[in-house]
């Protein structure tokens, strides 16, 4: 009996997920990944996606028509919770594939596009996102990557940046400018690009924490068949809104649950070893304050996921509030961990198996939270203008 067969009995479903994770997650995977080569990382991500697929848990939230199981929000919460509890791998490399691509294709793709590309996801296709450009970050709509029609193709020239795992991607959802004379939001078109097309070059970007999770795309005379356009020509900005809105807390939710287990494990170890900071009024209070914020953040994420199911949800600024508060909290927690780790915590180390075992790695990595996916400054604009109705002058 598969896990999905238990979907009508939530506790049994949870037990089944837990059991499966206990069987499938290899111990020590984190330490191995900390020093993994790119090839090992890719192989491991593909293996994990395949395992999830076998268990029916790769795309369980998609409609049944497109290979999903149509699971409810409550099931997804259970899955995310159990994955976090088991400290199982994240499907990092598949974020765009699992969330943004369907979030775009379901409302805006043609039936042919959906059939062709959604099917590939369950099989392990890696997608990346070609949105930001070196000169168009916060001001995304100013993008300049050009697409020019040439018969039944478009020819693309330009540059994209901050494209997660684009070094490993099979496909790209790409924003381009098709009408440079139109107002900036009106001349944009949205494409599906085969990353193996001639003229696509990807260079990894080295981050301050030593990792390279993002790539820079250099596109030179790349030819994309016209049938790969999503939505109408020059209507790409509207389509992109669906992509940008598709996430709405899903990744943050799993992250917050992971952080909860991580900090709890950290605390258990500290208690067991009689860590000195527990006897320090200031540090101990700072720590329990984080716990209150963690719990509030988890509450807020549940509220957001519930809100997503209601009509009109896209007008709410709750995702921005969640991002702003959650990423700032993460940064403060990692900073605290870094402080109490002293000089030893300044010794270079990547991901460690012990929770917050390399706090400086986590601290440096926390900037992807406060900067990527819309900087927190942009979040503040959104909250003030859309949420509080403060005027744009």
């Amino acid at each position: 009996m598969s896990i999905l067969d238990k979907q009508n009995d939530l506790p049994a479903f949870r037990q089944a997920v837990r059991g499966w994770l206990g069987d499938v997650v290899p111990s020590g995977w984190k330490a191995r990944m900390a020093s993994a080569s790119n090839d090992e990382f890719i192989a491991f991500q593909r293996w994990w996606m395949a395992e999830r697929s076998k268990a029916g848990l790769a795309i369980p939230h998609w409609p049944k028509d497109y290979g999903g199981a149509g699971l409810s929000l409550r099931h997804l919460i259970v899955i995310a919770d159990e994955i976090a509890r088991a400290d199982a791998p994240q499907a990092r490399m598949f974020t765009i594939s699992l969330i943004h691509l369907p979030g775009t294709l379901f409302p805006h793709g043609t039936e042919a596009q959906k059939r062709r590309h959604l099917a590939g996801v369950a099989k392990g296709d890696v997608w990346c996102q070609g949105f930001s450009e070196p000169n168009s970050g916060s001001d995304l709509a100013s993008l300049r990557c050009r697409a020019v029609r040439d018969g039944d193709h478009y020819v693309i020239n330009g540059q994209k940046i901050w494209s997660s795992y684009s070094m490993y991607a099979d496909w790209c959802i790409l924003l381009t400018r098709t009408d440079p004379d139109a107002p900036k939001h009106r001349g944009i078109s949205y494409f599906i690009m085969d990353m193996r097309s001639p003229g696509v070059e990807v260079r990894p970007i080295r981050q301050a924490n030593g990792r390279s999770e993002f790539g820079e795309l250099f596109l030179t005379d790349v030819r994309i068949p016209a049938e790969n356009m999503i939505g109408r020509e020059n209507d790409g900005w509207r389509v992109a809104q669906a992509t940008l809105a598709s996430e709405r807390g899903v990744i943050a939710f799993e992250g917050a649950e992971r952080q909860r287990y991580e900090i709890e494990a950290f605390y258990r170890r500290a208690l067991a070893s009689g860590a000195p900071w527990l006897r320090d009024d200031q540090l101990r209070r700072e720590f329990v304050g984080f716990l209150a914020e963690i719990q509030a953040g988890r509450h807020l994420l549940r509220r957001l996921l519930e809100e997503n199911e209601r009509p009109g949800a896209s007008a709410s600024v709750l995702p921005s509030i969640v991002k702003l508060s959650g990423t700032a909290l993460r940064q403060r927690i990692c900073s605290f961990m870094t402080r109490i780790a002293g000089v030893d915590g300044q010794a270079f180390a990547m991901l460690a198996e012990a929770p917050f075992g390399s706090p400086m790695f986590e601290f440096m990595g926390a900037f992807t939270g406060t900067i990527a996916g819309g900087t927190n400054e942009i979040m503040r604009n959104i909250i003030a203008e859309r949420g509080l109705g403060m005027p744009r002058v």
Partner: protein
Amino acid sequence: MATTASETAGPPDQATLDALRDGVAGVLAEQSGSTAVHAFIDGKRPLDRDLWSQAASLGWLGFGIPDEYGGLGLGARGLAILHAELGRQAAPGPYIATLSAAQAVADAGNDSIRQAWLPRFASGEISAAVPATPGSAALAWSGQAVSGTLRCLGAPDAGVLLAPVADAWVLVELAGADVTATPMWDPTRTVIDIRLQQAKPAALLDDGAGAALTRAMALAVAADSAGAARSITERTIAYMKTREQFGQPIAGFQALKHRAADLATKLAVADEMVAHAAERAAADADIWVMLAKAEVTEAAVFVTTDCVQLHGGVGFTWDFDPHIFLKRARLNEVLVMANPVLRDQAAAGLAAVTQAGRSALELEP
């Protein structure tokens, strides 16, 4: 921890709570708006008494009291909603003291004590006084009578005092007692010094009353602070939309927009802390209620302070609203127990739960 009276009624559903919130909010917006509160502060309107009668007749005073004693049995979640709305309108009156005393009696009293007192609280017949910081001092107890002085939260005409003696808590009727009101910076609540000499308690409760009182007060104060902070933030943003400088509403200045966004974010987190604490009010050794009181009251001081600043010059004048909420937030901050101590106690609770092999962080059942 034993199941307590306030739990037995079964949890009210969200729709019920939302409807109650709307009802309370509607009445308070009408009765306790800015003009009414200013008139009260300036001694021109007995808003505290008017509101109290209305609260009694609308059943608010029985929100946390089980049905069988004349209440609505809404538990901690219901009380959190009520206190948040009272804070939102800076409503004057002894609500935190009375409603929290009722919770302590409901949780720690035997049935005859509940029978005797809860209906009187629910009907508004009497209001209660409770120590402003319940853990700090106790009355002297001869075995027959209590003596001593306590600084209490409550109205000058409070009918009953709930106070600690050595190992227990007593209810003492206050008719004719020596009560002195201390003028406070917060004009919307009253603190009284009660001096007792050989007063005979009307009832004796076990030490659980102290924990229940502290828990109820902490949650009430947290909720009140969250409501107060949200309210003055909304009013401040509304003011900023009308106030023009340099040819534009100041709400359009990006630096102020970003600060307002940070305030809104803090408020969202504060609300969830209160909600989480209310859900867990009887579990987890009070960890979350104590943390909510500490975190939310400090957030409220931050927010209300910034709201004065965002108003500019008029912010620190008597005639505008911000100071009322700032003063309310500052009193809330020091009620119940000093926040550093609350965090220490929460940490101790967390250590105990963790050492017992449990997790204090589960949200799902």
